[in-house]
């Protein structure tokens, strides 16, 4: 057994689109930005309460902005995908990271998913379901054409296998 040498997972071949950074940042800003703006307005327009709102503003703004900047950049380093003739391989997450492998022979459905923000950035995602109840493999932040091609490739590979993939 190769116990003496150390093993590690290699990252999947393809990165997601660079536009995905902007998409993640937009997603991340949905709650912090209105909060920060509201607190800023309160700070500006209610001078007697500045000592309170100043601190609350800082307490909301610093982690909020840090999250909006760090999360997308970090995710971009991690999120990757790859398909071979046998399997789909994905990597995702940032603080909590996940690498998933599913053999093509066990794939049941392949869907395209496109959220409203994703559409705004011209991105698309795919969802690969297997017979397991542990959840689908997702690759988000792909270019639309890439996603369409990928779905077609996977669907063809899936149809080639008989049985109900359990």
């Amino acid at each position, binding site marked *: 057994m190769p116990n003496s040498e150390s093993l*590690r997972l290699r990252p999947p071949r393809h990165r997601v689109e660079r536009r995905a950074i902007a998409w993640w940042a937009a997603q991340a800003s949905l709650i912090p930005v209105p909060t920060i703006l509201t607190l800023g307005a309160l700070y500006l327009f209610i001078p007697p309460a500045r000592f309170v709102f100043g601190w609350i503003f800082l307490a909301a703004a610093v982690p909020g902005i840090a999250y909006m900047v760090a999360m997308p950049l970090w995710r971009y380093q991690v999120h990757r995908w790859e398909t071979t003739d046998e399997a789909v391989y994905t990597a995702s997450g940032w603080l909590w*990271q996940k*690498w998933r492998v599913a053999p093509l022979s066990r794939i*049941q459905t392949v869907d395209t998913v496109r959220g409203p923000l994703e559409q705004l950035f011209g991105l698309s995602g795919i969802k690969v379901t297997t017979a397991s*109840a*542990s*959840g689908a493999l997702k690759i988000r932040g792909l270019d639309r054409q890439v996603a369409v091609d990928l779905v077609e490739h996977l669907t063809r590979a899936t149809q080639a296998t008989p049985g*109900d*993939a359990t």
Partner: protein
Amino acid sequence: MTAGTVAVAPGWQRLSARLIPVHLSWLAVPVVSTGITVLGTGGKLNLQAYLTLSSLTLAFLIVSGVNLMRYLTTGYRITDSRLELRSGLLFRSSRSIPLDRIRSADVTAHPVHRLFGLASVSVGAAVQGGSSNRKFSLDGVTATQAGDLRDQLLNRRNALNSGEAAAVADDAPIAEIDWSWIRYAPLTIWGVGGLFAVVGVVYRTLHDAQIDPLKLGVVHDVVNAFGSVPLWVGILLLVLVIVALGVIGSIGIFVEGWHGFRLEREDGGILRVRRGLLISRSVSVEERRLRGVEVVEPMLLRWGGGARLHAVATGLGSAEENRTRGALMPPSPRAEVLRVAAAVMGQEKSPTVLAELRPHPRVALRRRLNRGAAVVVFTAVLVAVPGLWVPGFLQAAWITAAVLLPAVILLALDAYRTLAHGITGRYLVARSGTFAHRTVALQCEGVIGWTVSSSIFQRRSGLLTLTASTAAGRGAYRIRDVTVTEGLAFAEEAVPGLLAPFVERG
């Protein structure tokens, strides 16, 4: 072509006519409820009572009507290759299910049904290309019809699949109820929850009948007595009463659920579990859908030397159905559970007993201790916060921390010792758990994908959590906190070739 054991059903069969009185029994609820209210109020009904009664009666009339219609319109038959069902008056529907898609045929009989010798058959079939089940149920055939239908569906489809009669199984059951196991029932503590539910229902019923339970003589006396003793005696008594009732409740649940329990292997590779006192259930699991077993040892049960056994099989249904339909043994002695696990999987020894047990690295223990410490700190801070205003809470926080700390250390040590994984024969075995220890033995060929995950803390310690995806049971079984090298090597050993293209050496 087929084994010829079953005669082809000539035509359409219907539900039993005995359903009519069963359906009318629904009307008993408003009648009884009226009776109680009339008694409780001495014959005077106010507007609220009338409204409640009329809406109840209306609702139950509708239910009875719908049921009656269902009886009149439902029919089924088995042809050479399909099960056909039809139902509905306004929206007529007829379904035709290929026999080779049928995954299960469970027979259930509720108390009222049993009174009239009826039963329900619930047929699970695979959806086109999917892992999800579709359920079709026939509520209210006679018990003999139900048995025949079950036998026909399961035997027929086995004959279709294998093309020959399967080997005849021996007659002795794999396991039967042993009433000495009832000693494990109180260790399952489900009774306490059930107790509160019963109290709630009784209170609601009395309240609706305009009887304030707190004003009843008996209750009144008890409440008064409670007020006259010192607080700690009262609390102690209350705890004792709750525990006693909880014990009675869990014994009751055990008896109801496991009376007449019998696990046997039937012709054609089918495991059949029969059990239940009031509601009698019969669940069949095809052996070719069985991917493994899981031995569960919740804390109390483990201290008593007991365990439970679950089947890890595909096509059992939702998570809830997996829990109820997958149960192979009641809470029973660990040795007995292991014997049955071995028998079910057709092995000499239960695959959950690791021949070569691989412990996890010491870092995993540190993670568990850290987690325990976090719980202690969090709880102590919660207790201490009111201490800013009220004196005494700070001391309480210290005491809480001092009591909790040894407990979490023991739990962490136990959780660490529980962690183990290995491969025995063609089974992947994984054990983990803090309060409930779970040992799963999963057939390696049942693994349909891997997930490797690691948190930022795990990455700093060079650990990962390996999750085997499968179509059976809970769908994902974890091997927590192994070193990166060991985890990846183990995945490769269990399912050669799946993860290998993505692993680098050196």
